[in-house]
């Protein structure tokens, strides 16, 4: 059974950071972005923004790394969740994560990851540019394909118009 996932469209994102603020507000009751489960990294050279967030890997390295067996796959879905009562904050999972998506929560002194807000991600709701979407992987792949195809088609259409001398 597939689960909906977070997707980030870098071409729409302007790096406002509202997603990080609402994430921290929802999970830590704080108005800053330091403990956000979703990270927005800035490519200063190209002035682009990308998001880093837990991708809920199929064979998650954090599950193997956990010293207290607190990380597990939610039964019935493929979401990686944590039992924070047993977490000792050793940060082994943070080191094991190849995507830098596990976040150390300095208030609880525990490591947390994106839990998709239980199926209704606030970052998606509050994204002003609709850069973040919450979708099934198949639908997202369809969208990407459509977008790529229409981009290519549009480019070739422009060529045709140029050739025929019409103004676009």
């Amino acid at each position, binding site marked *: 059974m597939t689960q909906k996932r977070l997707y980030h469209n870098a071409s729409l994102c302007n790096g406002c950071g509202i997603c990080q603020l609402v994430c921290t507000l929802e999970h830590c009751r704080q108005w800053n972005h330091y403990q956000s489960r979703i990270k927005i*990294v800035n490519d200063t050279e190209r002035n682009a923004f990308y998001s880093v967030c837990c991708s809920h890997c199929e064979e998650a390295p954090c599950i193997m*790394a956990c*010293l207290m*067996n607190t990380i597990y796959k939610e039964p019935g879905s493929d979401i990686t969740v944590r039992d924070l009562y047993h977490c000792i904050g050793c940060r082994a999972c*943070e080191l094991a994560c190849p995507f830098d998506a*596990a976040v150390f929560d300095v208030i609880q002194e525990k490591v947390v990851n994106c839990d998709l807000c239980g199926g209704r991600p606030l970052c998606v709701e509050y994204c002003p540019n609709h850069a973040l979407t919450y979708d099934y992987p198949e639908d997202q792949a369809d969208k990407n394909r459509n977008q790529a195809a229409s981009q290519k088609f549009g480019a070739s259409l422009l060529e045709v118009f140029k050739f025929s001398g019409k103004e676009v």
Partner: protein
Amino acid sequence: MRIIIIGNGAAGNQAAQTIQNRDPEAEITILGAESIPFYSACALPDYLAGWIKRDQLFLKSSLNRHRVEIRLGQAVEDIKPDRQAVTAGGELLFYDRLIIASGSRPVLPNIPGIGMPGNFVIKSVHDIDRILAHNPRRIVVIGSGNIGIEAAETLEYQGCKVSIIEMMPRIMPRLFDEFPAMLIRKILENHGIEIHTGEKAQEVIGNNRVEGLITDCREISCDAVIWAAGVRQNTELARAAGIEIGSLGGIKVDSQMKTSHPEIYACGDCVETSDLLTGKPALCLLWSCAKAQAEVAARNCLGEKIAYPGALKLVAEDAYGKPCMAAGLLEEELNKKELKIIEQETENTYHRILIENERIMGIQAVGSMEAMGPLLYLMKKMVAPSEIKRIINSPVLLKNMPWMLTIDKYLQ
């Protein structure tokens, strides 16, 4: 299939879990020498400090108990490979596959006074219970490895006066290079832990109870000595059964975690595997290694052919709120000529990356662990730094791997 697992630790339980996930019909027997259920040995210092309660040490297991028999307090007496059986509690138990996960035990040197009350090790829950019951106020910790530092820190947190004695010239000699070790030493000393390096414990003195420790330089009065000077593999059973023992003292296994005997596998602290980076034989006494090895051993037990890539030394430590981590090899273990060291120091953080032959061979960080996860992964996958640069410079590749941006500044 009837599978017997010797050892009720991280490796034993992970092996049982993996077997049960893949073959729910397998009959598993876990034989544990300790009479308490499966607990996390890594959380013992937190329990010593009082940060977690005793019940939080015990880990929940999702094993189906209809198919798994866990016999606690039953040490295995011997293994009979020719009859495919083990004896435990006077009973003969037959197996199709045997997994040895017998673990390790702390090393105690043979010096006068070692048998007195007040000498402790940190290995099991009972050891911690004993330390808490003793209620020491002035403590000497021998050895400054991972366990020694954590024990010292937690006991200092409880209000004890703590001294650390280390035989080598710097603390954490097998984990950190000289400069990062010095940084950690400064952090510890600022919080009131005395550290004496280059000294060796000679004698424990006292009258029916520990009253002091004599090293080759000084005499320290104390009421408890904690021995954290390394561990030794439990290989007596395997040795008696004629299973080959490696040159470093662990049970010798191939990449499928199989011992010299075809039906017997081994995993966890007691084995000697190869190092991921160098391929040389290595001992790896870490929780994550034990779990990875157990998974490989269990899957091979059931007939899959999975290879274990090798053990990577990886330690994360918390020195008074400052996260420290070390992975891979040290400067002295690498070839001086081809070695390139990237060091970055700010007011609160220090990063050191060792690169040999276009391969990342060692990472050490003090103060911040940001972006170390992706870097470690690249180290495990043996990605060259030039390749990382290529990904960062290409917008198409970077779009799919944005975390590469965060590690860029550490590779400058």
